[in-house]
């Protein structure tokens, strides 16, 4: 079996947002929503801090679908539009999505976005990878782990573009992959582990 995943080294991540725009570009993500975003944890301002000057710290967390092993979103989806594929990715079949947004309520990470309106693109054409399907209003979308790229042996766009080399992509079922080795280390951080969704995306501290 294959269990594709991304590891993000939080120490190397400078919150530069390159992966945010890279994902938007690759996947033709319209204005007003993002599949991948970077939050400054527990801060009300980007690149803010936790604590009081000068006793402060900052964690920037790139946040996209965690491709959970036990995906809450997939369970609740009435039509099977959201599914876990045989490469271990959580995907959405837009043709099956009835826009009920059960999955959005179910996902603990708030990484799913909905086309509330007709998608509005700036620039006003379909940019990105031509293989990525164009979504219409009324469907939910999210990180696909760059299905169109990873299906063809390419690494996800956010991984390709991360200038800090903070992102590692690979197969968790292959014990020799770099990502498996990283996971075996003990300084792994799983987001909201107590939710039991068992994210495949993980963070190194």
């Amino acid at each position, binding site marked *: 079996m294959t269990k594709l995943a991304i590891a993000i080294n939080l120490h190397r991540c400078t919150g530069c947002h390159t992966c945010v725009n890279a994902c938007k570009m690759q996947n033709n993500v319209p204005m007003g929503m993002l599949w991948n*975003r970077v939050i400054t944890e527990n801060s009300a301002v980007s690149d803010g801090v936790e604590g009081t000057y000068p006793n402060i710290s900052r964690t920037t967390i790139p946040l996209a679908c965690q491709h959970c092993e036990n995906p809450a979103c997939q369970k609740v989806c009435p*039509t099977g539009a959201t599914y876990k594929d045989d490469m271990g990715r959580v995907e959405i079949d837009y043709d099956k999505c009835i826009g009920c947004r059960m999955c959005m309520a179910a996902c603990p990470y708030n990484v799913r976005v909905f086309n509330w309106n007709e998608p509005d693109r700036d620039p006003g054409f379909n940019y990105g990878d031509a293989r990525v399907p164009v979504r219409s209003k009324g469907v939910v979308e999210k990180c696909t782990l760059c299905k169109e790229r990873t299906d063809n042996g390419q690494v996800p766009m956010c991984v390709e573009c991360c200038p800090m080399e903070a992102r590692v992509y690979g197969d968790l079922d292959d014990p020799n992959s770099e990502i498996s080795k990283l996971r075996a280390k003990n300084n792994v951080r799983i987001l909201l582990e107590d939710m039991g969704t068992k994210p495949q995306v993980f963070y190194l501290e």
Partner: protein
Amino acid sequence: MQLTSKTKGICILLGVLAAIGVGTWIYQLVNGLGVTGMSNVNSWGTYIIMFMLFVGLSAGGLIVASSAHVFNIESFKPLALPAVICSTVCICLAGMFILIDLGGIVRIWRILTGPNFVSPLLWDMCVITCYLVINILDLVWISKGAEEKVRKLSYVALPVAILVHSVTAWIFGLQIAREWYTAIMAPIFVASALDSGLALLIVCLVALDRAGIAEFPVKLQNMLGKLLATFVAVDAFFIGCEVLTMAYPGAGQAQALAIMATGETAPFFWFEMIGGLLIPFLLLAGQKRRNSTGLVVTASLLVVFGVFCKRCWLLLTSFVEPNMYGAPGISLGTHAAQTGGRATWALTGSYMPTLPEVVIVIGVLALGGLAFTLLSQYLIKGRTQTQGAAGEAHAAKPAEANRAAV
């Protein structure tokens, strides 16, 4: 059968409101759910609140009607028909709210071709369909006077009614991601279904009585009022349990409690606690007060509105604080967000229904009112008139006659 001109007037008004609602819904279909106040952070709103409310409201009717047969409570039997009409209309409205909330209604057939049996929403759609069928059968059989069938059906209807509320509760209660995640969610739903449903039924019965369609004796009003007081107490007890469980550990859930008690959803929470539980209970607790139609109706309306408030805080509180908190927050996906810049984001959830949403809700309610009026006109009045013709005539003005005694 002829409608009175007053009834006609009401029907026309309701019809116009319903038509405006439909028009607005078409506007929503064309422009997308972006015309509502929902967003990626607060992804469910008024429609789902109304859905929860109406699933609950539909319960009271069917439970009263079924109990009449299951527990053989003779005095409830005359109420069965109005109760089931009420219940049928409410469950239809609940279903409509779900459909209105769908972004991709054109693909709804996908549920049939590829159902995912672990989805609580799928279960809910199934039980609601069953429930609707039961209601309709009940309606038909009661109006036909098929006593035996009605009696047998009641044995199915009662558990299904309980199930509908439990399953609806599970749509929320099984979501570990949100504050809804609690085992008491189903009992809470059932309890509030019982009190709000019964309260609505009482209001409807009084209305039918006033309209001279069906008699609602004070004795019965007193009895139902007492029952309602009991249901309210049960509801309060469950909520108490939940709130205590949230508050006691002082951890995670206490934050949600703070939002309810002092934050964004506090007005709803406190209205429910005081206006929706405490006051109605006090009003209904007195044996004598229960004979006052004014007080009973006031209490009932308060209970219904209280439960509406409960739906609001129950749903919305969970959307306020995202689990992963940090700037810039969550990309909203709304019209405003599409203009870019800071409007793209929200750190925490907030929600305010828009005009189209309100108009659509009013339209659906009007449609419900219309359906209830017409159904009760045709099924009850029609039936009593036929029965009356057969010689078993009711007093010309049963309501007034009855009330006069109070």
